């Protein structure tokens, strides 16, 4: 049962990822990207991590895919994309991907993944939260600072002084 679900999810994820790259229509491409991200959420569900899966859905599908859709619909295509296509780039991309996957794969396999106990109970997300707030708290603080500074930076960049809103009543 789990194997067949895993196979179906893999086909869905990889297939829609290829579609997202190759299809001509940008809207369909972003829909395929949503399917890919949902497939990754499915993998997390299979791995007994529903917390991560739900965040994958609500952050990646619910927000980032919406952002991409927004961009695709509101900006004219020629402004954001200029097509540079030739065979050599494609093959170089495929080669780079293979090298990357081989490298990451050897690292993962060498990291003791094979000796992992697959029948043990899933880790409770509350335990992960406790660890985050105690042992790993410096990492949490650094992440919070990075996110806060990026938000402040985005707001500074998006602010425009030259636009005067004369419709506003308040």
């Amino acid at each position, binding site marked *: 049962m789990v194997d067949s679900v895993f196979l179906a999810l893999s086909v869905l994820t990889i297939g829609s990822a290829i579609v997202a790259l190759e299809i001509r229509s940008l809207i369909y491409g972003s829909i395929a990207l949503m399917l890919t991200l949902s497939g990754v959420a499915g993998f997390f569900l299979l791995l007994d991590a*529903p*917390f991560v899966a*739900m965040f994958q*859905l609500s952050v990646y599908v*619910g927000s980032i895919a919406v952002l991409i859709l927004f961009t695709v*619909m509101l900006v004219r295509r020629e402004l954001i994309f200029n097509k540079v296509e030739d065979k050599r780039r494609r093959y170089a991309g495929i080669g780079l991907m293979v090298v990357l996957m081989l490298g990451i794969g050897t690292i993962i396999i060498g990291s003791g993944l094979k000796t992992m106990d697959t029948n043990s109970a899933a880790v409770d997300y509350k335990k992960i939260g406790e660890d985050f707030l105690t042992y790993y708290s410096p990492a949490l603080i650094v992440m919070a600072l990075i996110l806060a500074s990026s938000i402040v930076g985005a707001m500074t960049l998006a602010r425009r002084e030259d636009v005067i809103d004369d419709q*506003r009543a308040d």
Partner: protein
Amino acid sequence: MSTIAPQFRLSRFIGSLFDLIFWVILIFSLVGLPIVFIVLFYIKLPVINGQLMTPYLAMTWMADPSRTLPIVKNFMHTTIFRVMAFPGFGFAALLAAATIFVERKFLAKMQLRVGPLYCGKIEGILQLMGDGFKLMSKEIIIPAKADKPIFWMGPLLFVGAAGAFVSLIPVAPGWVVANPNVGLLAVFAVIGFFPIIAVLTAWAANSKWTFIGGLRALHQMVAFEIPLILSLLGVVILSGSLNLSQIVESQEHFWWIAFLPIGAIVFFITILAELERVPFDLPEAESEIVAGWLTEFSGMMYGLIQLGTYLKLYAFAGLFTVLFLGGWNGPMVWPPFPQDIITQGITIGPVTAKFPGLPLFDQEMLNGTLWFVIKTVGVILLILLPRGVFPRVRIDMILHTGWYKLIGLAFINIFIALGLLYAGVLGPGGLLH
């Protein structure tokens, strides 16, 4: 005088009836029964009252109506019953239909409309059916330049997402379709799908009204999703759980609305915005942009969108009840099932009928459902009320409200919850627990 069938002979008619019965019996015994047995061979049969449920046993029980109750009761505890009937689709659709009906009557009363008050003689009871038949008999028109696959998928996805939302709402102790440990996060994940569906179908219809409506829907829903999530964090902090059933159980003594009124108000306003209801109905503002992102839908596609909208309305009202109003908690007002009927059966004159397997539902579940329905209906009425009262708000005011004021209020709510927790008043090991 014209006759309906001039060649009619009674003997031939009866003969044809016998013919029909003969063929039905022949085909059933030669084809139907083998198929039934082949199918049953692959299905895991349930064990009822210590007996394996074989087809012969099922037929025996069916012959005696008083013995079928165990089968019915067993069926009620299967997943398919939960999904189709009680806490799932049937129940939600019933409440949604009642909502539409009450809303139409409510507005009709306010504006003196005739249909919902008169149609069908008794309190306009046939109005909904009339609406449904009208939608079903209408032609489904798809604009010539529309993007057909997305346009067709839109209503189905919308109903599907609303159904997923409904399946997460616990109605009575143990009566919920899906009960994941991260139920509230699942709710957030499902809510995130609605703006995508709205903007995709709006784009696919290839019309400027739908596109303007879709973009408005996207702006509004994305802007209000953040205060929605933030306003619920207070409840999660105080109850210490993301599981909706456990959140209800944590309100056995106090409802969270007593401690977090600001959160409840923010959540209610965001509900109105997420449901695109007055005063936040800009995505379908009928006096400005025809019907917004629903403009090009016709016939049953429009009907499906409406069904999804009202399922979503029920689910949001149920979520408000679960998170702030104590869910199924309430005083035990449902009378216990009379013991005489269980032990002695019902005696009518000389006949005594025994019904093994009674009662069908236990007292707690019925009482919980009663309280849940009462509270949810109250919240639904509160959601319907602004439609008759308020004007529509401008888009920049909506965004201003969502991004500035509601997020600020939601943070105040979180600080109140944290204060209550750290002061040792509530939460695990608190004074009031």
